[in-house]
């Protein structure tokens, strides 16, 4: 059986909060608080949660943009994942980073701020090609760039334009082309469609799904919208305050959600059907601060099922049926 492409083990990222004249560390923001998961080759894992739950930080540690406080991101460096030669990406030094980024790339949320406004698309891409020595001898970089522009549905002539000349959807296509340039094994998509209009959102989702099918890509798809995630993911993980609360294959996840937080998230998604009267589970209050994570189960302050045990002991993420894991005392 094929080994997973990525194994994330007990990943933690704490940010210090300094205070006072001496700038002593007064507290810690526990952005990611011990998460573990695997991603198989060719699979899309959807990582879902509200703002501030640590999903973006988790994504950034995958590509070594953020050094974790503890834990490992093990990447399978063997071909086709047949055997297990793993490299810890998160622990690489600045110098060794280049190796990691050849395997993992990222698409950012905001296509307006993630492209350099002073560079044409061509220059932006040629820089990457030169840095990673991607153009084989005798093959000009332009060929490679033109080919990629076509792959993401842009004209080759568009390569000589500046980012401001494109619409939001086109910019996101450029972001995708840039990520594809070095032929990565894994692409971290950090809310790639949440800044886009619905009609453009559908175009980008279909493009990402098509690329995955054609190029055999693997995605970590970070989003806050469960409906979007459903269309692209094979498995879904729900994060809350730095921990994974539930993780399951798509079908199982959407037909049989177990964690009360997952249920609440699903019922909060507005449905474009005025006749549909939903029993809405309305979560009260907001996500607590990651500086002050509640004791016991971190969801107990908003949970409709909360009991004494939830305030005292933190539930472990444990197996239910098959691949379905949940961290809840009652489910």
């Amino acid at each position: 059986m094929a080994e997973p492409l990525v194994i994330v083990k007990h990943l933690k990222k704490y940010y210090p909060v300094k205070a006072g004249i001496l700038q002593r560390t007064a507290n810690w923001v526990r952005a990611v608080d011990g998460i573990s998961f695997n991603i198989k080759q060719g699979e899309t894992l959807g990582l879902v949660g509200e703002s501030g739950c640590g999903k973006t930080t988790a994504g950034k540690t995958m590509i070594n943009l953020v050094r974790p406080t503890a834990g490992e991101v093990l990447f399978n460096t063997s071909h086709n994942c047949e055997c297990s030669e793993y490299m810890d990406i998160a622990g690489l030094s600045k110098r060794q980073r280049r190796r990691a980024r050849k395997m993992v790339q990222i698409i950012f949320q905001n296509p307006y701020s993630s492209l350099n406004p002073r560079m044409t698309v061509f220059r932006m891409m040629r820089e990457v090609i030169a840095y990673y020595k991607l153009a084989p001898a005798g093959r000009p970089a332009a060929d490679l760039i033109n080919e990629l522009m076509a792959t993401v549905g842009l004209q080759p002539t568009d390569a000589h334009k500046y980012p401001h000349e494109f619409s939001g959807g086109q910019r996101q296509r450029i972001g995708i082309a840039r990520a594809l340039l070095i032929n990565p094994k894994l692409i971290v998509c950090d809310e790639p469609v949440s800044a886009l209009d619905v009609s453009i959102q559908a175009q980008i989702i279909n493009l990402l799904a098509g690329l995955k099918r054609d190029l055999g890509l693997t995605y970590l798809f970070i989003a806050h919208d469960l409906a979007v995630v459903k269309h692209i993911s094979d498995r879904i993980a729900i994060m809350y305050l730095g921990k994974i609360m539930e993780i399951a294959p798509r079908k199982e996840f959407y037909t049989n959600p177990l964690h009360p937080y997952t249920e609440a998230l699903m019922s909060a998604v507005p449905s474009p059907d005025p006749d549909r009267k939903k029993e809405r589970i309305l979560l009260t209050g907001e996500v607590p601060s990651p500086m002050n994570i509640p004791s016991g189960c971190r969801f107990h302050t908003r949970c409709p099922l909360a009991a004494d045990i939830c305030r005292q002991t933190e539930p472990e993420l444990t197996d239910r049926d098959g691949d379905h894991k949940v961290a809840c005392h009652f489910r």
Partner: protein
Amino acid sequence: MPCGIFSIRGSVKKGEKHMENDILLQVTDLHTHFFTDDGVVKAVDGVNFFVRKGRTLGIVGESGCGKSITALSILRLLDHPGRVVAGEIRFKGEELLSLTEKEMRAIRGCTISIIFQDPMTALNPVLTIGDQLSEVLLVHQGMSPHKAKVAVIDMLSRVGVTEPEKRFDQYVHVLSGGIQQRAMIAMALLCKPDLLLADEPTTALDVTIQAQILELMRDIQNDLETSIVFITHDLGVIAELAHDIVVMYAGKIVESAPVRELFNDPRHPYTQGLLKCLPRLDAEETELFTIRGIVPGPFDAVSGCPYHTRCRYAKSICRERIPMLEEVAPDHQAACWIGGDEYGTAGPILSTPSTREG
């Protein structure tokens, strides 16, 4: 209305009159243009709609369709180079466009108020929440600061702000997005407005917080009988809240109908496209429907129907002549040359029996 004295004709007339009294805001043939150095941008290009008392009108469309500019035109908040060049905006029988700036200022924030999309940038960062909310009452109602504070704290707690006394003295940046938006809603409601304009009030929020805010808006409407104009690009949100919907594209209304009618029997290809491209929790297919292309830019001159460049059904007439908004069913208008017959007969595209359950 059965009444022996009136002829049938007379009673119909009386019914119509009742309908007219019901209308709080009537926008007629509104044109808002921007006179830029590069040319004139027709952001709102001949828009007609009305808002009934105690009801919600949804305005739907993608970015750049003129939704927000319509709202700003109603409140006359447009800045240079934008200007309302033609049209009428009648609010409670009064023509807003002919009021003086001083008279207009008495209406803004009092009988008509607005909630903006991004509370972080719409609220003043150097004033406390209490200061900027009290100001509304000091200015419009001449309340004493002490009384205003009591009223503000009361309103904050009504819109679900936790610990309102503490929030009163806090600044915007210390509050979370959800609380900021609630504070802005409280600010808009302080004078118990007749009309509330909500410009994408939930777009910047998480789904869980969005659900809370929508619930709050529904409660407000029930309690205060406020009319709401709800602007959004999210058809899911609008389905939950609106009674009537207008769909805008490139500065024009392309379809207008009561909510159920619009979702069950959308006639304009743009409305159909918007509905079909929405990712849904209750759908199984993985390939999403897409509307090809993008909204035409402000300086792109599109001849004929503005949507023809993206429309799957476009014919030669669509490229040549602009379709007018025409009645396709009772209370239901669409601006399309194909008129909905060719694809409309396929029946409603969304409401299959399986999606109605649950």
